[in-house]
């Protein structure tokens, strides 16, 4: 199977100017089923690019159809920031989004919590032969919807098709490019004892929604929180908040992120259980399956470390936004201590106990 980029397929396709105008009018269309030939660079690949990807991902770089996307100069003094990610979700479509939407949000968010302004994404698919075209179309539209929300452009892509049984419908890999404005310094090295930990909204929505789908539990209130975070993070910077560090608690949830930060900084993080925002439906789902909301992934939340003196102002900025209205202060940073666990939680009774990483996958339990 030969690899192909959108650009080469279109280069073989013919006159570009008229087609580009036509593309703007046509809605994104997908074949009924994905065949091996869709990945082999020939006619079917061209159709996929022309009928599905180009109409969805409208932007000058992609429409230029080169072998690689030539980007405008970056603003003077800004540093490029690059990230990559891979997305595998079962089920690929879920309440609140799909893996296409998720792939763009996840990449945008990696850049955003690093303190960067996301600009461009690449988007590469590995499709399983026999996958329904409608699923692919849904993911493509989801990706463009997220790109529009985040204000970024998907400027390069690729498609491969593997034989039936060698993949799980759709895998997506991305790379994301952003810029770090001059004089902005965000990172774990800035976290200090006395800092406060904020979360931008209720935790566990995404993971709970996925687990509900997998275990045939339903709930109208269960919806992935999947969303781009760059609006929220830039709001903090625009308000002049001295953000020390940020992370998005994806795989492994809040507890995993806290452990990583504690390890990298050598500090202790103490969370307060009664301060943690969790939607009742997510709590209920966790009760039913025996999960801990702190270990359940989020896909549209930021953990934010700020100095104590900035906490109130930061919360005010977040509360003024729809996607930050449930933001809360959930923990504090202290110096490490050999006889105390690096991450701990104070429960409703005021007792502090260690909060450990999950061992093994979060499997449903009877006891």
């Amino acid at each position, binding site marked *: 199977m030969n690899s192909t980029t959108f650009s080469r397929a279109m280069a073989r396709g013919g006159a570009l100017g008229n087609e580009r105008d036509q593309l703007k009018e046509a809605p994104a269309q997908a074949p009924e089923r994905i065949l091996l030939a869709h990945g082999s660079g020939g006619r079917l690949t061209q159709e996929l690019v022309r009928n599905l990807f180009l109409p969805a991902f409208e932007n000058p770089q992609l429409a230029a159809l080169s072998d690689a996307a030539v980007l405008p100069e970056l603003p003077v003094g800004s540093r490029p920031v690059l990230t990559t990610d891979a997305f595998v979700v079962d089920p690929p479509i879920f309440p609140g989004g799909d893996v296409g939407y998720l792939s763009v949000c996840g990449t945008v968010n990696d850049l955003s919590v690093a303190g960067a302004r996301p600009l461009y994404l690449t988007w590469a698919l590995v499709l399983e032969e026999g996958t329904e075209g409608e699923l692919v179309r849904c993911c493509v539209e989801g990706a463009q919807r997220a790109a529009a929300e985040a204000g970024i452009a998907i400027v390069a892509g690729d498609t491969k098709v593997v034989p039936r049984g060698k993949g799980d419908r759709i895998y997506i890999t991305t790379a994301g490019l952003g810029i770090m404005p001059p004089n902005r310094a965000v990172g774990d090295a800035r976290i200090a004892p006395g800092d406060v930990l904020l979360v931008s909204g209720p935790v566990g929505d995404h993971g709970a929604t996925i687990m509900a789908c997998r275990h045939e539990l339903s709930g109208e209130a269960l919806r992935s929180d999947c969303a781009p975070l760059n609006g929220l993070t830039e709001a903090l910077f625009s308000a002049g908040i001295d953000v020390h560090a940020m992370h998005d608690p994806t795989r492994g949830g809040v507890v995993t992120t806290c452990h990583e930060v504690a390890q990298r900084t050598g500090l202790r993080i103490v969370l307060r259980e009664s301060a943690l925002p969790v939607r009742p439906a997510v709590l209920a789902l966790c009760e039913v399956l025996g999960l801990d909301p702190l270990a359940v992934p989020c896909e549209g939340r930021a953990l934010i470390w700020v100095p104590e003196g900035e906490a109130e102002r930061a919360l005010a900025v977040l509360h003024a936004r729809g996607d930050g209205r449930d933001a809360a202060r959930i923990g504090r940073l202290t110096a490490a201590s050999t006889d105390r666990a690096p991450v701990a939680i104070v*429960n409703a009774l005021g*007792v502090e106990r260690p909060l450990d990483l999950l061992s093994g996958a979060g499997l449903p339990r009877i006891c």
Partner: protein
Amino acid sequence: MKDEAVYTDARAVRAVLDQLHVAAARLDRQVTFMEVCGTHTHAIGAAGLRRMLPANVRLVSGPGCPVCVTPVGYLDHAEALAALPDTLLCTFGDLFRVPSSRGSLEKLAASGGRVRVVYSAHDALAIARANPSQRVIFLAIGFETTAPTIAAVLAEAERSWIANFHILPGNKTIPPALRALANDPDVRLDGLILPGHVSVITGADAFAFVARQHRLPAVVTGFSPADIARAILELVRQRAAGRAEVVNHYSRVVSAEGNRVAQELIGRFFESGDAVWRGLGTIPGSGLTLRAQWAHRDAARIPVTLAAPREPAGCRCGEVLRGRIDPPACPLFGRTCTPDEPVGACMVSSEGSCAAWYRHERLGTGADTHSVGAQR
């Protein structure tokens, strides 16, 4: 249900604990109570209740964790069955990481073994229905709370003529284990916190013998911090007054006679037999085996070759399960045996005493566990 918030209300718990400290001052010596049920162990740990108790009240964890008391031999047997042609194992997630003599079900699955995790025995039956050419074997563990669900699935398998569904019997019952503990001269208990959900099935009266024959105060209670604190207070009061009664504090779901439908279903499919409890040895009449008329459902009758089970050296799960030592006294605890790399079953299950201690009672990062004094 309204007003559930009161069960986790810190004011309720502190109020009960205040009364507990007053009552404990009237005791003439230290007392040791055992919470039998692993879910209680987990709840006590999560609430941090141990360190809020008076100095003369000690709580030890009992053997009520079905994963922890599943013997290594059962896991070996499951692995041997999974290796047979056209055979598919189904298991609760709880058993997935428990060490067998040579591996675990998780490792078996990773190397291509045919094992599936299910949330319910009902899901295992659905897998059998969907795979008629496969012999599906469900690993039947759990106490009286889970046993009737397995009996119900067997009833449905019979009713729907699903011939390829089997179980490997491993269910156990609590009252014989309590008798064994009460009769063990090395285990000196002053009272019991009885399992809440087992009692939903058996009824509180099933535990009356604990007071009548063994002179032990006992309380059936729920799993909230307020419920558990209130149960400990009742035990202390009874001890101080020299009484021994079984009291039901979980009357919102536990009745005196229990769930008759569930009991009938259990009795239809199972009979009592001897069972091996990891760490406690054989306890007569404590296991549920399939009655002879259901032999066609019994995976224990399928011929397999089994090697002698290998218990991990140094593991003191047995003494932990009997409440004779606290987990930190085991030389492996927190060192070679952690939730990430468990050696014994007590560390695998999140309700196992060792896992619960590691997660909730440990203050440091290693095996150095502080003795829990009161922290108010």
